[in-house]
């Protein structure tokens, strides 16, 4: 039996390389730096380019340029870096640039607590740029998921041409576990949909609003025009109400209409359970451990691990909470995702948060205590 000790940053990097990632630009920031270091080592082996840029703004800018020239690109940072990425996240939404962004979250606003993990950016990643348009955010629960969701992130980025975030944190990227060598799941690699050489290429031409246009690389067989401004199908600036309406509806609908194809959840439900636990990221580790503890005591309990934070997997959440009286949402923040659950709960259902903002992890025992307390 061949085994290894693997941490989350290594798993993400392997996921990226196996996805065909051949461009990485990043700027050092705790706790995301290990991803930069691994990518600087691994990318040259596949003939790509990895670079430490002068700042976060340049990091994501270089990635966007590389994608337009045909690369599959990823960048990694922490919350303060996402703040600096903000305008370019908007650009990637508007210009429809497939891009994977890893957020190794740390605690607090601004510099915060650099070496302390947290789930601080749960809402920020969804709403972190102007305009209010959708992005996709995945949150791995454990280290093998870091690999699996990175693979999904690249596929989703290509399929929907949006920035796809991997919301992880210090607890995942700097923590290692034993894994069986070769136990990464097989996931089909989605290649970029490109317009064939002999066909006419109009950069943003689509038949239906929810359709995602095929690409052509700058330097390839067509003349390519892309833009960060509101544009017509040729990529030309426009103020035409009809065209603007079409563009803005398209940027929403290409995600909203496919929510059920995008979302990933992990349900472990007991028929007849009165309590449902809902969590994500590292706190979902504690949640599933709590479920194990409860069942060993002969108790009924249900749990839903949310792997796609955005778009919200509303159907899976509604299905899971159908029979229960009480919903517990453990998070390492003051309740940032709980508000999404509250929107979906029925009035008679109680939604209770377990929230820590002291840098300590929420333990399975803490979850169990709240989960089993009489309401």
């Amino acid at each position, binding site marked *: 039996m*061949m085994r290894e000790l693997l941490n989350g940053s290594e798993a993400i990097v392997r996921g990226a390389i196996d996805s065909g990632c051949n461009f990485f630009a990043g700027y050092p920031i705790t706790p995301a730096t290990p991803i930069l270091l691994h990518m600087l080592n691994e990318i040259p082996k596949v003939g790509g380019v990895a670079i430490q840029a002068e700042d976060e703004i340049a990091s994501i*800018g270089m990635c966007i*340029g590389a994608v*337009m020239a045909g690369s599959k690109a990823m960048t990694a940072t922490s919350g303060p870096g996402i703040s600096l990425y903000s305008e370019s996240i908007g650009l990637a939404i508007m210009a429809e640039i497939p891009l994977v962004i890893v957020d190794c979250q740390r605690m607090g606003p601004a510099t915060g607590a650099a070496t302390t993990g947290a789930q601080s950016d749960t809402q920020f990643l969804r709403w972190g740029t102007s305009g209010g348009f959708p992005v996709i955010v995945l949150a791995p629960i454990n280290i093998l998921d870091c690999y699996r969701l990175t693979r999904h992130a690249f596929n989703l980025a290509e399929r929907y041409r949006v920035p796809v975030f991997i919301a992880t944190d210090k607890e995942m990227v700097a923590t*290692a*576990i034993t894994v069986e060598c070769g136990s990464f799941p097989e996931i089909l690699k989605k290649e970029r949909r490109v317009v064939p050489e002999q066909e006419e290429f109009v950069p943003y031409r689509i038949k239906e609003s929810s359709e995602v246009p095929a690409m052509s690389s700058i*330097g390839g067989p067509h*003349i*390519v025009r892309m833009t960060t401004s509101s544009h017509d199908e040729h990529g030309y600036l426009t103020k035409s109400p009809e065209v603007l309406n079409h563009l803005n509806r398209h940027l929403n609908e290409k995600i909203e209409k496919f929510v059920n194809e995008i979302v990933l959840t992990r349900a472990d439900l007991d028929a007849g359970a009165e309590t449902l636990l809902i969590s994500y990221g590292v706190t979902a580790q504690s949640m599933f451990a709590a479920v194990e503890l409860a069942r060993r005591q002969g108790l009924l309990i249900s749990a839903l691990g949310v792997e796609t934070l955005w778009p919200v997997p509303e159907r899976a959440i509604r299905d899971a909470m159908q029979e229960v009286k009480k919903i517990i949402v453990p998070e390492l923040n003051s309740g940032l995702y709980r508000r999404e659950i509250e929107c979906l709960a029925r009035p008679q259902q109680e939604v209770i948060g377990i929230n820590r903002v002291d840098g300590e992890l929420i333990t399975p025992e803490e979850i169990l205590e709240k989960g089993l307390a009489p309401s």
Partner: protein
Amino acid sequence: LNTTLESYIDKNKLPLPFCPGCGHNTIVEKLNIALVKLQLDPKKVVLVSDIGCNGLSDKYFNTNAFHGLHGRSVTYATGMKLANPELHVIVLIGDGGCGIGGNHLIHAARRNIGITVLVFNNFNYGMTGGEHSVTTPQRMKTTTTPFGHIEQPFDICQTVSVNGAGFVARTTTFDENFSDLIVEAISHDGFSLVDIWELCTAYFVPKNKFTRKTLNETLKELDFSQGVIQQTSRTEYSRAYRCLYGKGISQPELPIGKLVTKFESKLSTPLRIIIIGAAGMKIISAATIFNYGAILAGLWTSQRNDYPVTVKSGFSLSEVILSPQEVVFTGISKPDVLLILFPEGLEKGKPYMDRMTKDDILYINADLLPISTRAKTVPLKFSKGKKRYWALASLAKVLRHAGIYPLNALKEAVALHTKFADEYTAILEADRELVRIA
């Protein structure tokens, strides 16, 4: 190219949208002349434009184009060139873009990335209403400097020159031959920049009675020279990168970390161990080796580390879980075994010591006693010196004292799966002398 291209401008889209007399008209015309002279494949040319009136110009060219955010054009251009060095990447940026994106300009020059930057420099923000820019000369009036400008103007050419730009030139739209400078800039294999001074007839000209004459006088007054300012032959970055890091130079794979089970452990329930020491004292490395040993003995493990923001000062901590089953939750609130080796770890260890019960074991540097805990306390005496090995020696001592898994598994982990096998093997041979139970 098989056929000669007479123009790179799409005549169907003309006329240009700029004000009458605006220098942008001339720059677009001269860029077209330069491209015609060079006869580059339009599919290999990309114009990366920035915010401001200049950002309207790429639309008129039959080449690839990307219109991006204010001041960030150099970053996209860099990404494109890195991804595909065959591209001729031409950045169209204004003096505003050079202000907000000045940092990128400096580092692109320093890197010598093979892009060409054409600066449409008209000393103010023409698109947003005539505000001052980083290149507005002193005393000049703009909507944001109604009584005259106080700041010294940004010398774009000198800034990129002193930072290693490959080709730098300055010109004005009144120079009949400046398309030749653009040809030279695009042909240069490295970072190139042409700072093109021009008139903004909407704002800067009427506000300052600015003319061709005053433009030339301003250049003289500032002692800003025209023509080629710098030309060097440093290796272009994307080529240099591929030479140094390119395919085929991959590092050999080390056998470190691939572990085959060949020992046995009698552990039947998860065991939670925390080792706390001082930064720089190889706490985390020792915990990793300890984990390797456990994996060789067939256990599943996890390792969660904690440390302050400093590197070589303060505490260093590793939480290790060893288990006969896969580890689901990687956190530890109460350890079964706690090691505190250095005074830096005492405060961090206190909450754990408070939670521990009589069934738990605390291994603690005897110099740190007395402490209060319900855990069974095992004082450790260290021989002076070799502090960087205390952690590994202590973990070996725990194996001798408490079992858990065979010491030989740890020895094999050290011998086969560390970079400093000889050094660490010697420590394990001598661990009885390095640390003993007091």
